[in-house]
């Protein structure tokens, strides 16, 4: 017999489960409807062009799209090794006391509000880059186009570094967990064969934690893509698409944050809706790819476990 409590439980959980896809669908529909005029009007120019001039009614978000992808990827490239290294130190090398402190500090980084990161970035990081790092990169810039050109401070690089700092705690927390979850028997297998602690890490711990670390990095990438406030404050907000990381740029989310409140007319608003739709699609795509990556690595392993 199914009691009333059971039925209520099922109804509640069913409803809860339906809320998420429904919300996603609703958001998508609203965006598509809102963006439709711009999509019909500008078409592929929306992403292909980098001229964004609401005054003249030209809406090309190409620079912002590239800026979003570039800053996020770069942030992950910086944060991933740093986060894994932090996790290794926390779990494997530090004593229990230091380990607790490191974990707490790293978790604290995740709790800092985005706007505070933004302020710190604008007040400390950007001036620091301008006066210390950029002058030193100048000679390199003659050889590496990525580091070329005049540099004022607000830049793709500043945004990427700030993002790296912001996603670092996510990479670290996940890595910490999966590293700690590598069974003791695997560590001892390596140690008992004469591995040093470092060799044990390299050969038994990190390979065992690989899938989980990848998942953490994917999660972090998702966060980086959507981050808005802090990036807006350090990226320079210019629809530029130069080769250099030292030059100012834009991201899709900063574009929305800057212009949505004061959109000048229906076409401008529609274009911003299209940008939001683009951001949604990019985020979903990246997440799907990341998930697929994690799953493919994982299933390579589980198929073996089944075979046993």
């Amino acid at each position, binding site marked *: 017999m199914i009691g009333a409590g059971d039925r209520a439980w099922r109804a509640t959980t069913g409803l809860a489960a339906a809320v998420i896809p429904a919300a996603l669908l609703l958001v998508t529909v609203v965006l598509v409807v809102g963006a439709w005029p711009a999509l019909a009007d500008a078409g592929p120019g929306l992403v292909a062009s980098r001229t964004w001039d609401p005054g003249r009614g030209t809406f090309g978000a190409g620079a912002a799209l590239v800026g979003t992808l570039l800053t996020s990827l770069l942030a992950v490239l910086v944060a991933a090794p740093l986060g894994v290294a932090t996790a290794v130190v926390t779990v494997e090398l530090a004593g229990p006391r230091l380990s607790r402190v490191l974990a707490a500090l790293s978790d604290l980084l995740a709790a800092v509000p985005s706007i505070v990161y933004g302020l710190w970035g604008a007040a400390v990081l950007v001036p620091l880059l301008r006066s210390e790092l950029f002058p030193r990169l100048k000679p390199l810039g003659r050889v590496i186009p990525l580091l070329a050109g005049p540099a004022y401070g607000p830049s793709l690089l500043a945004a990427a570094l700030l993002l790296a700092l912001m996603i670092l705690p996510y990479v670290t927390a996940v890595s910490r967990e999966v590293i700690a979850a590598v069974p003791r028997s*695997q560590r*001892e*297998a*390596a140690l*008992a*064969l*004469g591995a040093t602690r470092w060799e044990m890490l390299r050969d*038994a711990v990190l390979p065992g934690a690989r899938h989980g670390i990848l998942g953490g990095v994917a999660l972090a990438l998702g966060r980086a893509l959507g981050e808005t406030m802090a990036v807006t404050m350090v990226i320079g907000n210019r629809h530029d698409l130069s080769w250099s990381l030292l030059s100012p740029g834009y991201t899709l989310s900063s574009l929305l944050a800057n212009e949505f409140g004061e959109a000048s007319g229906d076409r401008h608003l529609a274009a911003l809706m299209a940008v939001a739709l683009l951001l949604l699609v990019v985020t979903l795509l990246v997440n799907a790819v990341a998930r697929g990556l994690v799953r493919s690595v994982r299933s390579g392993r589980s198929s073996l476990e089944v*075979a046993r």
Partner: protein
Amino acid sequence: MTQGRLSTVGLTVAFGDRTALRDVSLVVPPRAITAVMGPSGCGKTTLLRAVNRLDDGVPGMVRTGEVRLGDEEVTAPATDVAGLRRRVGMVFQRWNPFPRSVFENVAYGPRLAGLRDLADLRGVVESSLRKAALWEEVRDRLDADARTLSGGQQQRLCIARALANAPEVLLLDEPCSALDPGATRRIEELLFELRADLTIILVTHNLQQAARASDYTAYLDAGRLVEVAPTRLLFTNPQDPRTEAYLTGRVA
């Protein structure tokens, strides 16, 4: 010749306020199988892990007394622990191959030791697998993931992996406790072959196994070495009432 001569002198190991081994002085004869038996928690595993110093990092572990291997004091602070562990192989209760190929599992130790040449590695892998009586079963699947082997095969793979370091001593911690009788017998037979040039310590809480598969037997109780004697002698004529109680099943 001192190769493989293992002994402990007044070995005491404590974890925090819990003493796992008390004043154990034991001479383990080379080229023989010494069984170590005793009730659960009596310190058998701790004894093995003192020999290859695998408990070194355990918080609160305090060890006094000595473990000697050949002329060397294993427990000295200056001992090269990684080097020691190459001389002293260990096989665990639950087989723990790496999630890699059969070949890579066996080649791991030699690779760590710096062996790079593939032909040399192949040679070591084959001879180690032969010694572990596993070669015929896996010669065609050296590239298969080790975890696709049966439990008994995986445990023999772990033995082969330890043998690849050409150790003087082989420590086995209840290696058959999760295996069926057939797989157990194969490992016991294999140990008989291996003792020709190895010092073997076989921890077991299975009396029949100790009786069947060892030359000497040591009985531990509550962290103390109660007695050690040639296996047949210990089983037929135990000197200590505690040993006798254990043998006759009056101890859990």
